[in-house]
C-alpha cells in the first residue's frame, strides 16, 4: 500500500505543469481565478491549445485523437488544470456525446462528428431535461415521428447549458409513445441551424445567462442522425450518465476553490487581523479541508480500482454527493469571507475589461453569485437525492 504517486506519475505531473505554465493564457487564468465572465472565444482559444497538444480529449481512444492516459493521469491533469486556473472543459461534446458516438455510433458518425469536436468546429449542448422531466428523466415528452428518411421533432428541452453557443444538440426523444417509459426513447443528433428550433435564455438567480430553453417545432432531422437503435436511446443515456457522474466529485476544482478561499480570507480583515486568523472562521476552513482530503482519497481509491480494470459504479454516486457538498461548503465560506461586501450586486465588475475602481477586491464581486450558482451542483447530473436512491438500490439493495 502506497499513497504516493509513482516516479512516472510525478514526471507526468511535471509535464502537465510545464504545459500549463507555458501555454495557459494569462488573461484566461485570471478570469477563472477571480470568477470573471468567460466568453465563447475564451473557451475556444483554450480548446485549440489543448487540441494542438493532443490533450483535449484524454478519454478518447488514441485512434480518434485521444490519449493513453489511465485514470490516475486524468485525475492529475484535472487537478493541475484547476490549480493553474484553466477553464473547465465544456463537457457536452468531448466528454458526453463523443463517448456515446464512440460506443454506439456508426463508422460514418464517428468519422464525421469526432474530428469536428476535436477541432472545435462543433459546439455541442445537451437536450435531456424537459419542463416536466428533471430527475425523472424517462418521463420526457419531446416527440420524434419517423416520416420517410426524416424524424419530425416537436417539443421542448430546458436547462440547456451554453446552448446559446451551440451549433449541435444531442437529444433524448420519444419515438414510441406506446412503449413503457424507458423503452420508447431514442438518442438523436440535431443541427441547431435546422428551421423550427428556437433558443430562449433562462436568467439564473445570480443574474447569469448560462442555461436556455430550446423549442422544437416540426424540426426535420435526417434518420442517419440516430445514434444506436431506435427506441434504445435509454441505453446511451445510462451509459452517458455513468460517464458524467465519475467526474462530478470535482476534487480538482474544489482544491482550487479552497486555495482561493484561503487567499480571500487572508486579504479580508476582522478584529484587526486577517480573517483566516479568526478562530471560528479558520476552524470552518480547516473542517472543509479535511473533508476534501478524505474525498480526494476516496476518489483515488476508486481510480486505483479502475486502473485494475474495475468500472466505477454506484460508488461514484457517493462521491458526487460528497464532492458537491464540499464544493458548496467552500462557496458558502467564500461568500461569508467578504462580509457585507457580499451584498452589492455588480455585474459590470465581472467583466474582465472593467476599468473602474473595484468596490472591494478583484474577486469579491463574483462570490455571492457563485455561492447561489453552485446550488446547482446538488441538483444537476442526477440530484443528490437521486444519487442516494442509486446507492440505496445498487449497493445496499434496499
Amino acid at each position, binding site marked *: 500500500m502506497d*499513497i504516493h504517486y509513482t516516479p512516472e506519475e510525478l514526471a507526468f505531473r511535471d509535464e502537465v505543469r510545464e504545459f500549463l505554465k507555458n501555454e495557459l493564457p494569462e488573461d484566461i487564468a485570471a478570469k477563472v481565478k477571480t470568477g470573471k465572465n468567460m466568453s465563447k472565444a475564451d473557451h475556444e482559444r483554450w480548446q485549440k491549445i489543448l487540441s494542438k497538444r493532443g490533450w483535449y480529449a484524454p478519454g478518447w481512444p488514441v485512434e480518434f485523437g485521444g490519449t493513453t492516459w489511465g485514470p490516475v493521469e486524468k485525475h492529475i491533469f484535472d487537478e493541475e488544470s484547476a490549480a493553474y486556473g484553466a477553464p473547465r472543459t465544456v463537457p457536452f461534446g468531448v466528454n458526453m456525446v463523443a463517448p456515446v458516438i464512440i460506443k454506439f455510433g456508426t463508422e460514418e458518425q464517428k468519422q464525421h462528428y469526432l474530428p469536428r469536436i476535436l477541432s472545435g468546429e462543433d459546439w455541442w449542448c445537451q437536450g435531456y431535461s424537459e419542463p416536466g422531466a428533471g430527475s425523472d428523466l424517462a418521463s420526457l415528452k419531446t416527440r420524434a415521428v419517423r416520416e420517410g428518411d426524416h424524424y419530425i421533432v416537436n417539443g421542448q428541452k430546458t436547462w440547456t447549458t451554453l446552448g446559446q453557443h451551440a451549433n449541435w444538440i444531442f437529444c433524448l426523444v420519444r419515438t414510441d409513445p406506446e412503449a413503457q417509459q424507458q423503452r420508447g426513447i431514442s438518442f438523436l443528433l440535431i443541427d441547431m441551424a435546422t428551421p423550427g428550433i428556437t433558443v430562449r435564455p433562462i436568467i439564473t438567480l445570480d443574474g447569469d445567462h448560462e442555461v436556455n430553453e430550446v423549442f422544437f417545432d416540426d424540426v426535420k432531422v435526417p434518420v442517419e442522425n440516430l445514434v444506436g437503435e431506435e427506441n434504445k436511446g435509454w441505453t446511451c443515456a445510462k451509459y452517458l450518465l455513468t460517464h458524467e457522474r465519475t467526474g462530478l466529485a470535482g476534487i480538482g476544482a474544489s482544491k482550487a476553490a479552497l486555495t482561493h478561499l484561503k487567499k480571500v480570507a487572508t486579504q479580508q480583515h476582522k478584529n484587526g487581523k486577517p480573517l483566516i486568523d479568526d478562530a471560528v472562521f479558520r476552524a470552518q476552513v480547516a473542517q472543509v479541508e479535511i473533508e476534501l482530503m478524505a474525498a480526494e482519497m476516496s476518489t483515488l481509491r476508486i481510480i486505483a480500482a479502475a486502473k485494475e480494470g474495475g468500472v466505477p459504479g454506484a460508488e461514484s454516486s457517493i462521491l458526487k454527493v460528497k464532492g458537491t457538498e464540499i464544493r458548496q461548503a467552500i462557496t458558502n465560506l467564500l461568500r461569508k469571507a467578504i462580509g457585507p461586501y457580499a451584498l452589492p450586486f455588480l455585474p459590470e465588475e465581472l467583466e474582465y475589461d472593467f476599468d473602474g475602481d473595484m468596490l472591494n477586491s478583484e474577486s469579491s464581486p463574483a462570490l455571492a453569485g457563485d455561492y447561489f450558482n453552485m446550488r446547482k451542483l446538488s441538483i444537476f447530473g442526477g440530484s443528490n437525492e437521486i444519487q442516494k436512491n442509486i446507492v440505496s438500490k445498487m449497493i445496499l439493495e434496499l
Partner: protein
Amino acid sequence: MDFKLTEEQQMLQETAARLVRDAYTFDKREKFSASETGFSPEFWQQMGELGLTAIPFPEELGGFGGTGVENMLIMQELGRGITLEPYMESVILAGGLITQLGSDSQKDELLGAIASGELQAAVALDEPSSHYLLNDVQTTAKQDGSDWTLSGRKAVVIGGHTAGKILVSARTAGDVRDEKGISLFIVDPKGAGVTRREYATVDGRKGCELFLDNAPGELLGQAGEAFPAITYQAGRAIAALCAEAIGAMEVACDVTLDYLKQRKQFGVPIGKFQALQHRMVDMRTELEQATSMTILAACVASEEDSVERTRTLTAAKFLVNRSARKVAEEAIQLHGGIAMTWEYSLAHYAKRLVMISHQLGDDDHHLEAYAKLMSVA
C-alpha cells in the same frame, strides 16, 4: 499509488479476522467484560501465540517490522469484534515509546515481553485537567541521585488496572504546558506510593485512575525531552484507533442494513422507506470517508516525524471521530428501541464508536490542532 495489500498483509488480516470471529461472540464478550480483568487473558495469549502482539516491533528486537498498515489491518479486525484487550495501549503505544526512547537494557527487559504478550503495559498521559493536551503535565518527578520519584494524578489509564508496567509522563522542568521538560517514566504499579482506583468504562473495558505519591519511576529516554516521542507515538496510536473505528463502523453499518431489510412496519420492510434509505446511504458515505482517512493515517503513521505527518493524523482523527459518532447515532436511530437495549450487540458498537473519540483527542481537539497546522499560503 497503490492500495493493494501484499500477500503477507492479506494473511495477517485473515489471521486476525479468524481469531476475532472465533473468540469474540457477543455472549463471550459480555463474560470477558464482566470478568475481573475486564478482557480475556486467553485471547491475549492467543494473540501472542499467533505473533500479533509482535507485529509492530523491529525485526532486530524480535518483531515483524510491521508498519502503520499492518497495525491498521489488526486494529480493524479488533474493532469488528469490539474486543476489549488493551492491544493499542500495550503493543502500539507503550511498545512504540520503549522502542523509540528505551536504552538497550530497557528494550531487552521489556520489549520481548510485550511482543510475546507476556507483559501487558499501559500508558498514562492524560490528567484530570489536561483535556487531551499531552503537553499539559502537572505530575512532577524529582531526582535524587539516579533515582526518580513521581507525584501527581494521571487520568483514565485504559488497561492500567492489570498492567505490569505503566509508562507515565511527568514534568521534570518548565511550566505546566511547556513541551520542554516533560519526561517519561516506567512505573511499577504495585510499587510504593502508587494507588489505583479501578473502574469499568462505558464501552465495556476497564481502566484506572493513577495516584502517585513519591512513587519510584525509571526514566525512559532523556530527562525533559520525551515530548516529541510522546506525540510521535500518539500519532501511531491515533492511526490505530481510526482503524479500530472503521472496523466497528463496518459492523454497525452491516447490522443496520440487515435490520432495515428484515424489520417490517406498515406491512413492508422499513428499508423500503426513502427517509431511512437516505440515512443509510449517509452512514455508508461516512464509512467511506473514514476509511479513506484511516488508510491515509496508516500510510503516514510510520513515516518520519514531520508537520505534514502530524497534520494528516490529526485530520484523520477529527474526521473519524465525527464519522464514528454519526454512524453510532444513526445506527441506533434506524433500529429504533431495540438498539437502546443492553442485550443488543449494536448498542455496544455504538458505545465503543463514541468512546474512541475520548481517547487521544475528540473532534474539537483535533479540529483546533489541525487549524493551527493548516497551511494557508
